[in-house]
């Protein structure tokens, strides 16, 4: 257990809105080990970003973590005071967001934004911070770092901004990197570059990565372990090979089947009917039941639990459970 870098237990995050309290993340438990890339996939609105924000307690004002523990090397982030959590942010856990262009402050030079972190956490002087920043820019593969330092964000391309974001995240040597859809806004050729860079950095710095994405292709190419999320719940967790070879949850199955694959597309693509339910109108029972072609009566009444169904493998489905592939651990 001790090798778990991040251990999240029964995380529940709620939003207070004018439509009442919405539970965006419910009973989410997972862990990330050192030197491991864990993928979190799911459709839009399934609660991926909220999960990542919850970890660092960066939720918007109306959001609140109502249950659960977030353990970073055994320390519970949820119980820390504001000062302590600030000292974790950016230094132990770094995070990069989906849209790199809007994640940089448009009125500050790139260099200044890069230096901020080391000056704050490592108490670097201006000169040290500058040198370090230049170093970081080089490491993410941007030529002429001095020039980049003096630029403003709008003078960077999308790929460059994302690399700056990565440089920024890596600059205090974090133990855990949370990447929330780091490549979604990028073109495929640029995405390939950034993915390559992230793999490389993970190897070199021996960090744990929580990679959030909706692109199963990216997951397949990057991750060691994968969690599938639906309606704020983790419905399946497995290592990447088992997941793609043998998806257990009907949702995972449907998801993988609906991805178009070059060279292997049949005439009619399979898809999952219906839509992701709104948080304020979640069905009782299994949240996927209304879209599930295999659903039985029980699915509509009782919500299944996430249980181990094999070595390092969890699933949240009555059908899977009933098939007796139930491995208590």
């Amino acid at each position, binding site marked *: 257990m001790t090798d778990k870098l991040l251990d999240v237990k029964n995380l529940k995050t709620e939003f207070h809105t*004018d*439509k009442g309290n919405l539970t965006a993340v419910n009973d989410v438990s997972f862990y990330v080990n050192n030197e491991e890339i864990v993928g979190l996939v799911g459709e*839009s*609105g399934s609660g991926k*970003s909220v999960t990542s924000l919850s970890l660092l307690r960066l939720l918007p004002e109306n959001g609140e973590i109502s249950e659960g523990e977030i353990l970073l090397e055994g320390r519970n982030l949820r119980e820390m005071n504001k000062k302590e959590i600030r000292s974790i942010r950016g230094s132990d856990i770094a995070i990069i967001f*989906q*849209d790199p262009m809007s994640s940089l402050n448009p009125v500050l030079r790139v260099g200044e934004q890069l230096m901020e972190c080391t000056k704050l956490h490592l108490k670097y002087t201006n000169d040290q911070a500058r040198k370090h920043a230049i170093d970081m820019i080089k490491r993410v593969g941007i030529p002429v770092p001095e020039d980049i330092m003096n630029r403003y964000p709008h003078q960077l391309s999308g790929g460059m901004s994302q690399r700056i974001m990565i440089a920024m995240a890596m600059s205090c040597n974090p133990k855990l990197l949370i990447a929330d859809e780091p490549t*979604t*806004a990028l073109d495929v050729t640029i995405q390939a570059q950034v993915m390559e860079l992230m793999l490389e950095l993970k190897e070199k710095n021996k960090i744990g990565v929580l990679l959030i994405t909706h692109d199963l292709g990216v997951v397949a190419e990057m991750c060691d372990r994968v969690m599938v999320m639906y309606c704020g719940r983790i419905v399946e967790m497995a290592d990447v090979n088992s997941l793609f070879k043998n998806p257990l949850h009907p949702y995972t199955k449907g998801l993988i089947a609906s991805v178009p694959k070059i060279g292997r597309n049949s005439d009619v693509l399979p898809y999952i009917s219906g*839509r*992701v*339910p*709104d948080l*304020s*109108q979640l069905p009782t029972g299994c949240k996927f039941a209304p879209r599930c072609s295999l659903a039985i009566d029980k699915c509509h009444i009782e919500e299944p639990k996430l249980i181990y169904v094999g070595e390092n493998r969890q699933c949240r489905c009555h059908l899977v459970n009933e098939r007796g592939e139930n491995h208590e651990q």
Partner: protein
Amino acid sequence: MKEIQYEDFKIESPFREFSRKFLKKKSAVISLAFLVFLLILVVFQPTPYDISAIDYDNILCEPNSDHLFGTDEYGRDVLSRIITGTRISLSVAIIAVTIGAIIGSILGIIAGYYGGLLESLIMRSCDVLFSFPGLLLAIGIVAIIGPGLTNVVIAISIYGIPTFTRIIRSSTLSIKELLYIEASKSIGVSDMRLLFKHIFPGTLPSLIVSYTMRMGTAIISAASLSFLGFGASPKNPDWGAMLSTGRDYIGVAPHMLFYPGLMIFLTVLAFNLLGDGLRDTLDPKLD
């Protein structure tokens, strides 16, 4: 690419959604209630006294049980005059702002939609109008055409035109870029239909908000004109004129200055708070 989030599945008409949000804004709702109250005053004119009934025995009375707001230099009931003044002040503001809004919106939509020379022409004229700062323009216009209610209305509406033109233009410009406009164009929708069916409704939120806010400005402008001696005649007891007369009695009969001032203040405040509430609800980006 933007993050996409699924929205409410409940069928809720835009109006219901609007009122649900709006009713949450307490200050705006209270303001609206106050303005409705004023409207009732305007319609029913429940004046306790004849507003021109002169009573030389009761000149400049302090507020008392007979005259809740006191009397003025002719012994006329201030409360009654304020109630009557509501109608005049509000009509001046409404008429002036409406004229300004209509002309301004038409110009703004044309400028924003067609662009080019027409736009330059319209916007440069607005610059010129704008370069006579604020009230000065109204003063200038009244100086030319003379004081009096109608002229005050004209002046204030002219002075409101460039504001509306700019707001509507910028609103049009941003709506013009929206995909659904292009979608309609690609269908072959005519310019007129595009302007009135698609673009104009889109500018409505900012139009409504600035209309509300301008009401406040118009009331204050009219009062300021009166104060500077360019206003309406005191026979029509609009608030500005009452205020302007009242200031000569500042030490003797402060109520003559206080109540009309309070009335202006409350009304303008109500318009502004209502505007705020509308903006928060309709959420257009105002410049």
